């Protein structure tokens, strides 16, 4: 049974506890930032921020809407990033059998610049980032060290607003569906983002693009012939989760 997250943007207050806790748990260094006219900082995911709370504001029919989107890797059931990297550096990206966590290993440093771009491009949510110093590619690791020790992922543990939940996929999915029904009155455009495909199920408060450009999957780039062949040749147990 894969593990899953439920992230409820209708409850998020953008306190950024998750963003900071993720860094602290992983001992990630602070990055140099500047104020550029938004609260969103750092401006984007980077090798030292696996979790980023995105802010987007709108004036819709005279009503101010301010949306928060705690962005992170979705731990796709069939991770395009993994399939892509597998062709170039086997073992660079792996998927944990027990949890479904998609994990980037030290081998990611052997991906060439173009190959990394291809991996990033393959991700429907624009998640992977590379440390130009070490060459390592990184992203959210589901706090696999904690989860394997029966602890909640650090971000989930930190959220006091009940915006984040973690558990077995079926339970999480049921929770998300139930919550969606509850919030429909206040948020008529609410939806779940690609709930069939990913282990990180977002409840979006409004049209996806009003929260974040990559809130829902972007159509992946067409596969190269090589990728296509590689995918077809892949053993079934690796390609199918869930």
């Amino acid at each position, binding site marked *: 049974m894969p593990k899953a997250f439920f992230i409820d943007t209708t409850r998020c*207050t953008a306190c950024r506890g998750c963003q900071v806790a993720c860094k602290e748990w992983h001992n990630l260094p602070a990055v*140099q*930032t500047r*104020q550029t006219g938004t609260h969103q900082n750092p401006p984007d995911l980077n090798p030292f921020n696996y979790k980023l709370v995105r802010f987007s504001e709108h004036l819709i029919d005279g009503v101010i809407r*301010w949306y928060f989107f705690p962005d992170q890797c979705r731990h796709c059931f069939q991770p395009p990033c993994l399939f892509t990297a597998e062709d170039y550096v086997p073992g660079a990206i792996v998927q944990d059998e027990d949890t479904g966590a998609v994990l980037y290993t030290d081998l990611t440093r052997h991906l060439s610049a173009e190959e990394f771009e291809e991996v990033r491009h393959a991700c429907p949510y624009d998640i992977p980032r590379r440390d130009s110093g070490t060459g390592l590619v990184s992203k959210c690791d589901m706090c696999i060290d904690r989860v394997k020790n029966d602890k909640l992922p650090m971000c989930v543990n930190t959220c006091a607003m009940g915006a984040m939940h973690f558990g077995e996929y079926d339970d999480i999915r049921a929770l998300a569906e139930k919550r969606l029904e509850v919030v429909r009155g206040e948020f008529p455009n609410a939806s779940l983002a690609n709930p069939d495909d990913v282990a990180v199920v977002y409840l979006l408060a409004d049209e996806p693009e009003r929260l974040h450009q990559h809130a829902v999957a972007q159509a992946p780039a067409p596969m190269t012939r090589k990728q296509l062949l590689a995918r077809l040749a892949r053993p079934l147990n690796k390609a199918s989760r869930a």
Partner: protein
Amino acid sequence: MTNHWTDIENANAILIMGSNAAEHHPISFKWVLKAKEKGAVVMHVDPKFSRTSARSDFHVPLRSGTDIAFLGGMVKYILDNDKFFHDYVVQYTNAACIVGEKFSFSNGLFAGFDKKTRRYDRSLWAFERDENGLPRRDTSLKHKRCVLNLMRAHYGRYTLDRVSSTTGVSRENLMRVYEAFAATGAPDKAGTMMYALGWTQHTVGVQNIRLAAIIQLLLGNIGVAGGGINALRGEPNVQGSTDHALLYHILPGYLPMVQAKWPTLADYNKANTPVSNDPQSANWWQNRPKYMASLLKSWFGDNATEQNEFCYGLLPRLDEHGDYSLMYLFDRMYKGQISGGFVFGTNPAQSAPNTHKTRRALSNLDWLVVGELHHTETSDFWRGPGMNPSDIGTEVFLLPSAQRGEKEGSITNSGRWLMWHYMAQQPIGESRSLGAMVVDIMNAVRKLYRQEPGAFPEQLLMHDWPQAFDPDRIAKRNNGWFTRDVEIGGVAYKKGQQIPGFGNLQTDGSTACSSWLQCGSYLDSGNLAKRRDLSQTPMQANIGLFPNFAWAWPMNRRVLYNRASVDANGRPWNPAKPVISWEDGKWVGDVPDGGWPPMASGKGKLPFIMAADGYGQLYGPGRLDGPLPEHYEPAETPLARNPFSGQLSNPCMKRMISDADPLAKPADKRYPIVLTTYCLTEHWCGGGETRNTPVLLEAEPQQYVEMSPELAKEKGIANGDVVVVESARGRVEAVAMVTVRMRPLPVEGRIIHEIGMPFCFGWTTPKCGDAVNRLTPAVGDPNTTIPEYKVSLVNIRKADKVTEL
């Protein structure tokens, strides 16, 4: 808070005003969301659309400093539409009390104003009293001078049009809030008000909160589950520090500070012990002499005897009307009247108003001791911007202090819960807790005093001063112990035994207790602040009350004034959410506000036990600037006249007078924009600690100014531009954050722009900007002298040269 965090969940309506709860008291919002989930309406009234507004049902922007106009309009709505809780108001508040003939109000001034001293003769506001000294009442509410009718007359002027034009809030938005909140006047509904510095930091700060309390009394929302008037207090331990009198005007447990006009303890007690001849009034402060004697006994130990009035004469005394609060302190320092001092746990060179003056004032000191975790704008003022170290003679000592996780002790949370916290690790290096510093420094001073003569030796040497700092011992002492074997009410107590509750405190020196409010928190059985037991009765579970978790003052009562939540027979007004209930001859639920039986028994007491007359004070003759809140413009106002009267600003407000304290003129053309200042989630207060926490600085790295796209366009400013914000006192560079979350406000026939800036960025952190308080004025509320950080007048322009960022 009259109530507590978890209780917010019980509310049917939540008015967040004067607070940005989700950002500044994030955990409070957990309970707001729970209430919302159960159908509560959550309203945020604030100049800025913030993360709180984003999660509320709706946000209402208003002009800073117009809360009394806004709330006064709500009082009018409640009275005009008969939305008040009639039984509650007549029985439990002073609505029916008749005010004396000398009271008047005209053109913005109450009776008794002395123009020269800018003070009121408050005796003119007194109630009419009968031969026993009880206030005369007309429970039919017909008498034209009964409080409710005076309020009708007073707030009759707060029409929708006038309120809308003053506050900048549309009539629709006013009605939306008024209707939703006034609906909680029904006996089975409750509304809570959550406020913080957005209400207090004004020249009318105390009256803002008075008016909120008035509304809560009218709606019967005090004492009930999901109700109350709830000041949000947080990690700085504001609750604990006021309980323990970190302010100059009080002694621990809210006993008044000694004044020169009360030379003896007898004088002090006479002046501060109210009398009531009403058998139904508990008049709790009649116990004050017991609390004062026990406090003195705790401080001076065996040296305190009945013969020497427990060393009362050794206490320092205030001059009458003497003000020794922050702004006056720095004003005196600026004028060269102070030569040295200690600064612990605060960073005034960053967080006091009118920073330029504050920093220059520090340079007049011969010596300065700062206890801090990091170098701050205060400890390092001598090398700050515009300072020439070689010109400054101040000798500064920086004592490295332990971080919260490096010490144990109690913190009193917003809901008055005393909670013990433990040391996670030993302080690093030579850093030490502030308690240890203070105790050891004083021991060194005492040693010197024993060796050589000095001023006021008795004051120092008579104290029962500990050899070393021990938080456990201090917690014990706060609760207090018996100083000799005694018998009280038929029960025998041994010398040294912990006192079970403040009901046992005595005037004869047999009890020592350094904070009567905390009496009952540390018994012979142990420190109740350490309890983490979640057990509760089903009745308690129903309203989220956890009586065995930590300990709440007073006497573990979780909801203050809870006797007001029941009718004369002790039956809850709202049977679905009882706080207390009289069942089978006893109270069940919360610890009742006094154990007397219900009122109908004839042996009951009125629920507002801290007021001498026992009634909730709609009309409050006690405050310096009026018995009823009235709208005045801020000290710096964009308006030339007050829409409500001929009195522009609070006639009693405090204002520093020096060459460094200029104010903008009313409607000053040079400074047409209203500035409000605030904290933000990612930094703590003045930022001295969090700017040194890299991951937090990463999230909020630099000074910014939030402004509407309309204003930005008018000024030719683009998002991300560096701008200069200028007031009559200084200029600050900031990055423009152009946002629809700030709305231009239509006020008195024109558009007023408001901008907002956080106060946490200071020069000791490179390139993050510097104190926004260089802009704010040193003016304050007459009752508390809290500075008016929330309103000043400024102008902005695009910067042609950037130096601070």
